[in-house]
């Protein structure tokens, strides 16, 4: 591992650690099994959504419909998956496939993903409102149990984060197909020249994004117990910020799944930290932005130092 590759993950880890230490100082109650779970359980769906966004950013696209899509998945989970599990499962599968199809279409017609996904966000939002015109539905019992499980030693949120990071790291960073997918972001032409079908690879990347988007929706319903057509609209921007905060870059296929999970947790923690600081809500968004800029600036400085060395 080169120095650069190694410190790409160090910075997100340090950011999270610093913020966590500050939070514990402000609010010692958080330093417990119970506290950590309260602090982080809502970060689990965000982490899954961030992974989904990362799949798209990995192939040099960006997904502005993710929040609406996660909301839709949440609505399906709280309605069909609860009432008629088989049908619900089929719908969720169809959603994943439609994401894969979207990726293929974007590549085949050379459409800008930013425009297509922006348009699709209204489609997803519309379907979600159609399925659940007013907030409601119920989380399937097994999902609720899963999201409120109390594993020994570490709370659910921490265990889930480790599992998500480990699985996606194996999938994206270690496996052969994951390497090729990152290659699409790095240099799609060279991947095509090596005999790969880039359209299939893009469909796969989008399909994976759809899968993790659906998982995010399910996890969210498991935590919230019910859904709402607007439940996850924030996730679009949060997920993008999470990917970048976690050491990823908008272009060039440079992503880090572990970093993405850490980025999602850092963002969640930043909001809690500001709330503990009793900062006026008018300043909170700005302060959140300031934290983001701070971390990214630190990254830039480190990288410049790194390239000089």
């Amino acid at each position, binding site marked *: 591992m080169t120095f650069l590759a190694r410190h790409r993950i160090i910075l997100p880890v340090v950011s999270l650690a610093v913020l966590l230490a500050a939070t514990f100082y402000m609010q010692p109650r958080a330093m417990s099994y119970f506290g950590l779970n309260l602090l982080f359980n809502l970060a689990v769906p965000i982490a899954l959504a961030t992974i989904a966004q990362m799949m798209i950013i990995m192939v040099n696209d960006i997904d502005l419909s993710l929040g609406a899509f996660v909301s839709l998945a949440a609505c399906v989970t709280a309605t069909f998956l609860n009432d008629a599990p088989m049908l619900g499962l089929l719908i969720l599968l169809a959603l994943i496939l439609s994401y894969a199809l979207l990726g293929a279409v974007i590549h085949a017609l050379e459409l800008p993903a930013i425009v297509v996904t922006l348009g699709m966000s209204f489609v997803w939002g519309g379907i979600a409102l159609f399925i659940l015109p007013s907030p409601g539905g119920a989380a399937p019992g097994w999902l609720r149990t899963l999201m409120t499980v109390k594993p020994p030693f570490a709370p659910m949120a921490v265990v889930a984060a480790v599992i998500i990071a480990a699985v996606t790291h194996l999938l994206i960073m*270690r496996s052969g197909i994951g390497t090729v997918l990152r290659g699409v972001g*790095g*240099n799609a032409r060279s991947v095509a*020249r090596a005999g790969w079908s880039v359209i299939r690879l893009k469909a796969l990347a989008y399909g994976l994004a759809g899968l993790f988007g659906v998982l995010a929706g399910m996890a969210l319903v498991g935590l919230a117990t019910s859904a709402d057509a607007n439940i996850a609209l924030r996730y679009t921007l949060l997920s993008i910020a999470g990917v970048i905060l976690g050491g990823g870059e908008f272009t060039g296929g440079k992503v880090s799944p572990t970093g993405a999970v850490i980025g999602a947790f850092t963002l969640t923690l930043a909001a809690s930290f500001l709330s503990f600081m009793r900062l006026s809500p008018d300043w909170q968004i700005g302060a959140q932005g300031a934290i983001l800029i701070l971390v990214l600036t630190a990254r830039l400085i480190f990288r410049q130092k790194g390239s000089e060395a």
Partner: protein
Amino acid sequence: MNDHERAPLVSLTDAARYFGPVRALDGVTLSVAQGDCVGLVGHNGAGKSTLVNLVNGGLAPSSGTVGFATGGSALEAGVRSVFQELSLCPNLTVAENLRISHSALKGPNWRRPARAEIGQSLDTIFPGHGIDPNAEVDTLSIAERQMVEIAIGFAPRGSETRLVILDEPTSSLDAGIANQLLAHVSRFCASGGAVIFISHMLGEVFQVATRIVVLKDGKVVAERPVEDFTRQGLVDAMGHVTADTADATGTGRDFGTEVVRTDQGLTARKGEIVGLSGLAGHGQAAALARLYLSRSSAWRAGKAPEVVFVAGDRQRDGVLPLWSILRNISVSILPQGSRRGLVDREGEARVAQDWKTRIGIRTDDVANPILSLSGGNQQKVLFARALASSAPVVIMDDPMRGVDVGTKQDVYAMIRAEAARGRTFLWYSTETEEVCQCDRVFVFRNHEISAELTGSAITEEKILEASFEMQEAS
């Protein structure tokens, strides 16, 4: 045709390829057998890249046939390509880049064999390369990337490598490493492999090729064993008459005041062509980039820029790939040509048209996208962009990569003419022949200036001496 008795690995019969009305390749018959090392030469746009793409299966012929020994695909026939533009994934490691073109690497622990395979290939071709298979490609220098790309081209990748196409493989390599490659190509062919070698460096072609194929306007105009060619004969066959460069340097010319002086000791006077030489990667490009950045402001794009830059890595630093040729030329002069913040469309078109004819950009319409041009012509556009501005100092970072001999002569003439009108040129080049065009040359070694040569002292021997001195001493 040829006296090859061995079965051909690939044979093209009257193969042609059209892009719309453009006949990129106009009926080529060619076969490559085991042990062949075919030198493929031709000026930019002669159809070399198209021919390569037919042989490696990247394109299907519009008419005629392309047949492989095994009857299957190019991939199955063991045909590998190393492309002119660097085509690695910069975000992946060296070993991971091998995985992209090596589907047979499977299983949970595919990294170990991948590292071993690329490491071995690098060791074989470039002994003492010092490239870590775990390094991410974008941490490597451009020469190292090209070495990796070549190594991947020669790596067995689960089957047997039979034919390797090398398209300008030495354009970023310094002489020592280029020689390692040429030696390997000779070994490879001697052991029954085949190579198609494309280069503008005719010396290299003569050194490795057993047979030379000359392409001109999409047709094979000459195909003979290398012994039957002379340098002059080859250049004549390509269709360009090399200008007599013996008396190129304007000795006795008077230069104006000094316009450039850096901490490193790099100086240039008004109207002077100053060359930077030495082995590749010894700090020349960095010195130029520093000079450029110190003379231009990131905040104010003034009406009259002090310096302009011609990039060597045109994919990264040069072309705006989504824009037309016209826009690519005019982007440097927009501040001068604009009135009240609006672009003067007519003036813009006039300038582009003017430079199209002056520098000979091969296109019917400057409104075409820049990527419709061949590599050499894209480079001409970058020249036009720089020269169209009013800047008194022009910085050129190895701008002649992948430019054919004829174009080079045109550009040399233009540079001299512009210099005579008072412009100053700072010119880094990996080709000694180009450096000899300069009035004064700084030779770099280990990021420092090791020698300053002027006038008749600028010779290949002197430059090499200054480049290698340290190595000999240590």
